[in-house]
């Protein structure tokens, strides 16, 4: 068993060396740990093809954090599962494109090869700790089984390692926990356990898919802080997926905003908040409730629903809900355009904060063409929002 795995790893090493572009990259241009190129995950359904992930390109350096933000149904969960190759095995799923992890395309690997990467090199924290732990297996076993399988630890070593892991994720009485079942722990504790499981073998990449959505608000910040702390200590790359811009603010190096299966804006975190170009990003930001607002201030929700991923509009997918939308937006889909600073991209014909955008918004206001009753976009993003988001860091 072990020798076969060694052989496979050796072979992998050879392959990596053999690839021409896998040669040591020139200093300063180190290759990213995760590179996603034009990833598409479509599902066939009786109603037609569901474009869950539709041409996403992203990259993530070692030890950095990438925040992926989007509404429900924007395809972010399918994206994370596509990166992990955790989609159900079925003929109706077609991920195409490239997902390069450390130079190897995960989409072309066999299950056996993936099993060597899962848990050991990349790991995942799921949304709901109530369902992501096996209810009939003791916590100790759920932590140690990965260690024993990947690192060939003895039973005792694995137990010790598990205790150390539980301690490091802040679980009191770790030794007693090993013999407990998940239902004996609270939600926050369970999520700490799943983080411990994900961290067990020292992965280089951790994907956290809405890790705090299912938790009490009081515990959310603790879990996010824990993730951030572990990520820094272990120099681990982190993909943090959420529907809440407030969660990634101050915790990510880069943020990608997803809408209808596509990345609609991508920028370093500071840039995104200060020089956003995409009306959708703006709308997301405005929908965050603020403590400094007078009470009973109406939240500026985004009007309408996310588009049906089977029957997508022809032009810009956000156009039906966008206060800036013009004729052109309905007709023609904008490509990813370069933003004001390097590493900033967005998809919009009439970007926020540009003369074109401003005049488009004014025209719509004049003609009463803004979707929704109260025109949220008519007001600029208040400065206190930005301050608050920054203070998160």
């Amino acid at each position: 068993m072990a020798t076969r795995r060694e052989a496979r790893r050796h072979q992998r090493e050879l392959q990596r060396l053999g690839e021409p572009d896998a040669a040591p990259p020139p200093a300063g241009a180190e290759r990213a740990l995760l590179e996603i190129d034009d990833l598409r995950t479509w599902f066939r359904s009786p109603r037609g093809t569901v474009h869950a992930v539709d041409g996403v390109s992203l990259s993530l350096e070692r030890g950095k954090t990438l925040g992926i933000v989007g509404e429900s149904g924007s395809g972010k969960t399918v994206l994370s599962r596509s990166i992990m190759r955790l989609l159900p095995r079925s003929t109706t799923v077609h991920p195409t494109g490239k997902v390069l992890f450390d130079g190897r395309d995960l989409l072309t690997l066999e299950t056996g090869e993936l099993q060597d990467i899962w848990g050991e090199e990349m790991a995942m924290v799921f949304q709901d700790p109530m369902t992501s732990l096996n209810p009939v297996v003791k916590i100790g076993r759920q932590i140690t089984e990965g260690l024993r399988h990947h690192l060939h630890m003895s039973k005792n070593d694995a137990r010790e390692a598990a205790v150390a892991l539980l301690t490091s994720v802040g679980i009191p009485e770790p030794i007693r926990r090993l013999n407990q079942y998940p239902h004996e722990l609270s939600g926050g504790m369970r999520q700490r356990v799943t983080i411990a499981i994900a961290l067990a073998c020292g992965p280089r990449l951790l994907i956290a898919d809405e890790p705090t959505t299912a938790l009490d608000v009081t515990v959310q910040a603790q879990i996010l802080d824990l993730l951030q702390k572990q990520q820094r200590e272990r120099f681990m790359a982190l993909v943090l997926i959420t529907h809440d811009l407030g969660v990634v603010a101050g915790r990510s190096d880069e943020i990608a905003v997803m809408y209808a299966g596509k990345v609609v804006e991508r920028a370093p975190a500071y840039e995104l908040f200060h020089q956003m170009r995409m009306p959708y990003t703006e709308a997301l930001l405005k929908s965050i409730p603020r403590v400094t607002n007078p009470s009973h201030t109406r939240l500026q929700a985004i009007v309408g629903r996310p588009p049906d991923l089977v029957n997508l509009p022809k032009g810009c997918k956000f156009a039906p809900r966008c206060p800036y939308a013009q004729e052109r937006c309905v007709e023609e889909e904008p490509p990813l355009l370069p933003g004001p600073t390097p590493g900033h991209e967005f998809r919009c014909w009439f970007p926020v904060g540009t003369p074109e955008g401003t005049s488009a918004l004014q025209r719509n206001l004049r003609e009463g063409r803004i979707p929704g009753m109260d025109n949220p976009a008519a007001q600029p993003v208040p400065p206190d929002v930005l301050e608050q988001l920054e203070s998160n860091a």
Partner: protein
Amino acid sequence: MVVLRKLLTLVPTVLLVSFLTYLLVDLLPGDAATQLAGNDPQEETIRAIREDLGLDKPLLIRYVYWLGDVATGDFGRSYRTNQPVLEAIGERLPITLQLGLMAMLFALFLSIPLGVLSAFKANTPIDKTITTVSFGLLAVPNFVMALLLLYVFAVELGWFPPVGWTRLTADVGDNLRRSVLPALSLSIGQLAVYTRLLRTDMIATLQEDFVAMAKAKGLPTWRILFTHALRPSSFSLLTIIGLQVGGLIGGAVIVEQFFALPGIGRLLLESIQQRDLIIVQGVVLFIGLTTVLANFAVDLVYSVLDPRIRRGSTRTA
């Protein structure tokens, strides 16, 4: 604690089973007295015997008397051979027990891998074949199955002796050869039921987050299927196994008759044909209690399999 509380719920069930069994014989025309009085019954003798047996008392009193006897292990004696009922059952029991256990083991050994495979490969040709075949097998009565097996393996191929029995203690090899076909004919129906049930539950479990999580740990596929997915999927299977004990005993009557095996089923059938009511009553009571206890045992095993129940909390779907 939990066991005790469950034991208490068992009491009314047992009483109900025994009462129904008692009624079965008691309400029928021609009671034990007429039987015992012989071929040429005199009114006087019958009445005397009735009084002697307490048959002139009201139904509930008679039932309580009878229950008292049964509780002390006295099921009565055969009208014909005067053999104690319990002894007659004891003689025949090992054969039926062996058949039932073998049938259950056959069914489980085949259905667990088949059900898991079918769920894992859901909607592939493998799964469709397994599902279709098991659906077809559901419609095969066990006497038809017995007939087919007998025809193919005993008559045409001659691999197994067609009928008859050798005690396990007498000759192990011959015993096994003679029990394979009967046990198989008993197990086919169970096999189909278990496979279909396990497949359904397993497909549901495989969509659970904790299975995706186990996969994300990089565990080998067989480990995910058998350690993480099988146990949470086995609850309905377990319930059905408990319920199938009754079906197994019913099937044993037919199969024992078909293959001429001297088990409990044959005893029941013979005593029915000979109108040996007291044996019929004893056997029916014995079978009823066995099925009730089997279901009780399943209840207990539940709590071992599912730690959430052990703590007394309700199980969520």
